[in-house]
Every structure is written in structure tokens, then in C-alpha cells.
């Protein structure tokens, strides 16, 4: 199965949700289920025959689900909301605001760097 290597990074305190580690290197499959399920589908049983799984190229929405399922250590609701990041979080893909790149629908490519930051308030 072909995979994509990514670098993700946190700022503004978000790293606290991810074991207080500021950056991760990770691999995700290049083709993923459209429903963003990140764990293998259970094997078919006589009662439940395997349904064909709809797929898509891995995008940022999938990455967010992957992070929730495999990296997030606590307080899921502070990171993800309605299948996307919480509105107080800014996502940047290769140094560009994800809003300019199609947000969750941006199709990831090998070597992409995705940064998730929360705004700081101190002074």
C-alpha cells in the first residue's frame, strides 16, 4: 500500500494535547476511506459480508481524523469539532493558511508540512 510521509507541528499550546511534543513525522496511506475511518475495516463475517469501501486520496480532513485516532492524548473536543478542527485553531499547509489551499479537501502529497496553531493571548 502506497504511503505519504508528512511532518506535522504544533504551536500556541496545542502540543499539550499531543503528549507535549511539538513536531511529529508520520506516514499515512495515500488512498483512504472516504468516511475518514483510520482503522482497518473488520474482516467480513457470514452475518456481515464485507461492503465495498469508498476511497479518496488522503486529504487534510483524513489527517485530522488520523491525528485524533492515533496521536491525540486527551480532550478530543479541544482539537476536533464537526469533523474538522475547532474554530480557534489555524491550519497551515507548507507555510500557507489552509483556507488558500482548499482547507480539509487539500490532497496531501509526500513531504508536506502541516502546522496546527492555537492563538496565544499572553503578553
Amino acid at each position, binding site marked *: 500500500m502506497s504511503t505519504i510521509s508528512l511532518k506535522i507541528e504544533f504551536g*500556541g499550546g496545542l502540543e499539550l494535547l499531543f503528549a507535549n511534543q511539538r513536531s511529529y513525522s508520520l506516514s499515512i496511506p495515500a488512498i483512504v476511506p472516504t468516511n475518514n475511518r483510520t482503522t482497518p475495516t473488520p474482516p467480513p463475517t457470514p452475518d456481515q459480508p464485507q461492503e465495498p469501501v469508498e476511497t479518496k486520496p488522503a486529504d487534510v480532513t483524513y489527517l485530522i481524523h488520523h491525528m485524533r485516532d492515533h496521536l491525540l492524548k486527551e480532550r478530543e473536543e479541544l482539537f476536533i469539532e464537526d469533523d474538522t478542527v475547532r474554530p480557534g485553531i489555524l491550519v497551515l499547509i507548507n507555510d500557507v493558511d489552509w483556507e488558500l489551499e482548499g482547507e480539509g479537501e487539500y490532497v496531501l502529497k509526500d513531504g508536506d508540512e502541516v502546522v496546527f496553531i492555537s492563538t496565544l493571548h499572553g*503578553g
Partner: protein
Amino acid sequence: MSTLPLEDYKRYGRQMILDGFGLPGQLKLQRASVAVVGAGGLGCPALQYLGAAGIGRIGIIDHDRVELSNLSRQILHNEETVGMYKADSATQALKRLNSHLTVDAITTALTAENALSLLAPYDVILDCTDNAPTRYLLSDTAVALKKPLVSGAAQKYEGQLCVYNLGPDGPCYRCLFPKPPAQDTVGTCEETGILGVVTGIIGDMQALETIRLITGLHDYKPSLLMFSALSSPQFKNFKLRTRNVKCAACGTAEQRLGEIKDIDYVQFCGGPRPDWER
């Protein structure tokens, strides 16, 4: 076109001989007015370089008083001004450096009721505050007044810098952060700590961006600078979206905020916190 007093050619000569600056740049600074909201960790270094550069009129808005715990980073205050209003203490330091400055020391708290009238007289607003409600209030006010908001923030080993409401289509704070982050993930400088010199670096960057805006040296491309003292590289620069037409504050759609004076910024940010260190 007026000219400068002879003494000012000497005082500001090193910057006036810069390409793209010159006498016109110095006159622009002299005629400009800047409001610095917060005379703490970010405000002190920003004020210092704005005052040294010869900004004509500087408003300092802060209703807090100097405490000993401020002195490890709020470098305009000193042991003798402990107990004084920060706005007054900072004014005294600026005048010591540059007696020709016009400084408005404003020791009343910035509120939804007075923000528009307090900030209206200034060309550029610097957000050097330390809490979410005031940050949203300042952003909404800057949008209403159609003025750039040079926003800095710092906590622990980290800092952020962004000029909101930049030019015709730069985003406001709400465009980027329609909802405040959960209180659990943020905390104040008092709770989480701050390395003083990080506020120095971000405050200086705020002064720089302000000087660029006033002198016409800014490229007007909205971007966010992220600083992390212990990372490598320490600085990252991100290209930002343009204004969001659906933004409640600066957008064109109908979901407008209503009048600033009617907004409860503290409730919007999750209610009062046990202790804000301003």
C-alpha cells in the same frame, strides 16, 4: 511640506539616510499617532523603539500598576516606579529617552463602551494585551475604525505576531479565530510563565511593523509570524487568507456583530478567569 528642527537631523540621522526612508519617512513618523494598548511585556519594548524613532504622538492605555514581578521583562518600569500606573511609569521612561515626545498616558481600563472613542484619535493600534476578551474587543474596534491592528502575543517560550485588518482585504482577528481557544489550553503568563526576552522580540517586531506601515515600507501581505525560542528554526512565517466575507466583524454578509458597546467579550471568551495579569 514642513521640515524638521536641526536637532532632529542629528537625532534621527541614522535612519533618515536609509534608502526609502529619508526626510519624508521621518516626517511621516512625526505626524503619526499610535496607540499602544498594554504597557507590559510587549508594550514596553514596542513603546521604547516607537519613541526612539520619533513617532509624533503615542497613546499608552493601561490601567494596571507596576509590580515587582513585572520587572523581569517589562523593561520600561523600574524599582522606583513599582506601585505607579504602568502608563505613567512608561511615559516617564519614554520622556527620559526623548523629551520631545507627545505621550497620552491613559490609566482607565479599555472597555466595550470606551474603546471606539479612546482609539479613534490614533492611526495605528498595537495590541500588547494579555487576554482573549481584550484581543477580540481591539480587533472589532480596529475594524470599525478601519485601522491596522499590530497584534503581538507571547507565552512561555513562544510568540506570535500578525497585523490584522491590513490594507483593503487583510483579515481581522475574528476571520482567523472566529471562536476563542478553550480556556484550558491557554492560561495566562502568571499561570504558565513567560521568558521575558520573548516579549522583547515580539514587542520589537510590533514596533517594526508599525514603523513600516507609517513610512510606507510595508508590503501589505497578510502573514503570521510564529516564534518559538527553543525550536529550530525559531521563526516561521505563514501566508494568510484575505478577509472572510462571512466574518461576523469585518465581513459583508448579514451575520454582523452588532454594536461593540453591546458585546460581552468576557462571556464570549468563556466567562471570567480567576486572575488576569494585565
